[in-house]
Every structure is written in structure tokens, then in C-alpha cells.
């Protein structure tokens, strides 16, 4: 899958699910990749004000959450503003 795309729509989630409280406020977006496929992702490494519809973003590899009492870390992709 392409690693870059553009934000189609986004939100700043203030009331998160229990497992994601440490991430609040959490920016979530739907991104259209260069092959037209749409994906859902968290946007990281930027403030809310830096996001707008059409912003160009690139995939980054991050911790998504930790799980249960054992605190197993779950990893996945997120997206960050592509400054290039």
C-alpha cells in the first residue's frame, strides 16, 4: 500500500474509550492513499490547528495501545503531516 495520502475528513476526539485515555485529545482522520484506497488512522506529531481537509500525510510506525493487565504493547501504523 502507498505510504502517503491526503486527509479526507478528521476529528479531534476528546472523550476516548477507556483504553485510549492517555491519548486524549486524539486526532483521527480518514486518509485517501495515492491508490485511492481510504484508511482510518490516528494523526500524530502535530497540533489540532495544523490539520485541515487535504493535508498531505505519511504513514509512521507507532505504539497503538497497551492491552490488559499484562500491558502487552500493540503496534500499528499512524500518520503524520508530510512536510516534504
Amino acid at each position, binding site marked *: 500500500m502507498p505510504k502517503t495520502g491526503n486527509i479526507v475528513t478528521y*476529528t479531534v476526539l476528546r*472523550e476516548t*474509550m*477507556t483504553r485510549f485515555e492517555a491519548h486524549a485529545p486524539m486526532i483521527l482522520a480518514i486518509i485517501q492513499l495515492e491508490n485511492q484506497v481510504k484508511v*482510518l488512522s490516528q494523526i500524530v506529531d502535530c497540533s489540532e490547528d495544523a490539520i485541515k481537509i487535504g493535508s498531505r500525510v505519511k504513514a509512521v510506525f507507532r505504539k497503538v495501545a497497551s492491552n490488559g493487565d499484562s500491558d502487552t504493547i500493540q503496534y500499528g501504523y499512524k500518520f503524520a503531516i508530510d512536510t516534504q
Partner: protein
Amino acid sequence: MKVFSAGVGFTRVGDHWTKSLVDLAEEAAVKSLKSSGITVPDFIIVGNMFSAVSSRQEHLGALIADTLGLSGTPAYKVEGACASGGVALNAANALVKSGEADSVLVVGVEKMRDIEPGEVARALSMAENAEYTQFLGASFVSLNAMLTRLYLEKYSVSLESLAAFPVLAHRNATTADHAQFRKTITPQDVAKSLPVSDPVRVLDCAPVGDGAAATVLVGENILPDCKSPVAELVSSSVATNRFSFYEREDMVDFSATRKACQNAIEKAGLTLSDIDFVELHDAFSVVVALALESMGFSERGHAAVDGTSGDFDLEGKLPIGTFGGLKGRGHPVGATGVYQFCEAYLQLTGQAKLNQVQDPKIGLTHNMGGIDTTTAVHLLRRMDD
């Protein structure tokens, strides 16, 4: 076989700290059985979304049957997220219509207030894909927030104009005895309410509450046994969509809503203009607009304007959410579709009291699971005088 609703029963929606999931289901079921005069139904179908999470309880069919003193009766639960009540009615309708059962008790029930808000959000997000949407922490509200932004952008609609829908819902709820919030709100209240997930504010969202609603569906062959006025269930239709809204080519088209509505109307031999009122699944302000537009009651991008001009008021061209809808009456998710059905029954049998729509003949109920992922539509008709 023609199918009728022979009676309804429901609890007030809200905080039922002293009643369990089963207590609520029992209260609604007993009221509907007593009202209908059908004391021993042939079948029981339960609509519920997440009793396993909220009450650590499954196996609701047999449990509720036994609680009602009806053990031995075939009984099971059906689930379709927030459309669980609607799909339960769809299954019950098929049983009666086919002649498999003469009478079916349908109970929608949900207990939501016993768990923490973050856990409610997690439970509701089970309507979305666990390996993807839930995994990333995208709650149901956040998805609707992204949908709202898309809708506002695509049709150049103002966020302020969408407030017409929660304001209307609360106005209708003020006179509904079973509503969770019997108080009015203003567009300014909506604008100033807490942002939950931008641009969605807390007053754009249906509340969390406990409740149960029930009805008894019967075939025309046992109408002489019925004690209360009846309304005909003329058609029942369920449609599904691509699972998550961001997978859809047109993300602001509710195709399951459109298909279920068209199919129900065609099966009933009716047209859209025959519909006198709609019990609409107003889980979020934007959903009202998209549902009305996808069914064809408003032009694309115009529902909020139509709402602001009074078209959907109790006295308007097409009243919606006549007892306050999900926003005002409340949204105990798996029970909601059955509440809507009960409210349509009250309208069509002239029992809606202060919420009565003038002279309605046909009512439509629209119940949605996920973001239009599973949608159930029912059409009810008043009996000829």
C-alpha cells in the same frame, strides 16, 4: 398472512439503578402482553446489543421466557448493533407472516448505565470492526464526527443549522411520559455544549440510558382474541451496507437506509408521499439529515433547512421523532427499534396524547445499526374506521 401489532409496553428511558436487564424486559413484556390480551405467545424474540458487556448476561431468550413464566416457548435473541430492535421485529414479522407462529412477543432491552462512560463507548464501538476501527481507538462518536465534517463540507451546510434536529427532538420529548429528557433546549445550548469529538457537541448525540420496549405481533387469524386497538405492520425490510462508512464510494450516502425504505414501500404498494410521520434513528444530528435525504424526504444538503422551517415538527408536513426520538426519548440501543415501533403504534391507534400527529394513516420507523451498516425499516398502517 397479514401481521398486526396488538399492543405495546415500555419503561421510561433513563437511569434504572434498581432494575436489572431482566427486570426491565419483564416490565415491558408484561405490559404488552396484558394490553394485547395474548397471554401466551407462540414465540419470543429479544432485541439486544451488548448485554454480555453491560450485565455479563447472554442467553436472553430463554431467560426472559422463564422470567415471564413462559418456559417451553421458543425464544432467542437477535442482534444488529443499534438496529437490534429493528431486526428483532423483522424476524418476528417473518414468523407471523409465514404462518409459522400466530403470535410473537418482541422485546427490545438494553442496560447501559451500569458501566463507566469509557466502557459504554467501547461497547458501542463493537458495532465497528474489532481488528481495525476499534483497535485504533476510533469510537463511534468520532466516526460520526468525521461524517459530520464531510457532510458540512460537501453540501456547504452550517453546523448551526444541524441544531434544528436536537432542538426539535427535545421539544417533542417534553410531553412524552417515557422520555429520558423532558426539557427543551435552544440552538445556543447545542452550540455551547461540550465538544465531544469536533465538530460534534454533546447535544448532537443521543444520550446513554436504560430501557425496554415490547410489542406483540399477531396474525389476522387471531385478531378476535386481541383486546386493544391494533395497527397493521404492512412491511418490514432490512438492508446492509459496506461495513465501515469510510469504505464506501460515496461516504455521505446512506444506501442501506435508501434500500430498506424503497423495499418496504414497494412491498406495501405505497409511495413516499403516503408516509405521514417517521420515527427516525437520530443518534447524531448529521444522521437525521443523511437519513431524510437518503430516503428522499429532503433534497441532498437541504434537510437542515427543511428542519429549521418546521417541516418535521409535530404539526409539520412530515413529523419525525414524535416522542422525542433517540435524542429526547433516549437511546437504550438494542431497545430503540422497538420503542420506535411502539410509538408508531400509539400514533396510529390514536393513543399518543399530547404528542398525537393529526390524522396519521401510515408511519415509518427507521432503525440503524452502525453508520447505516444495518438498517431496518417498518411501515405501519392505521386500521380503517
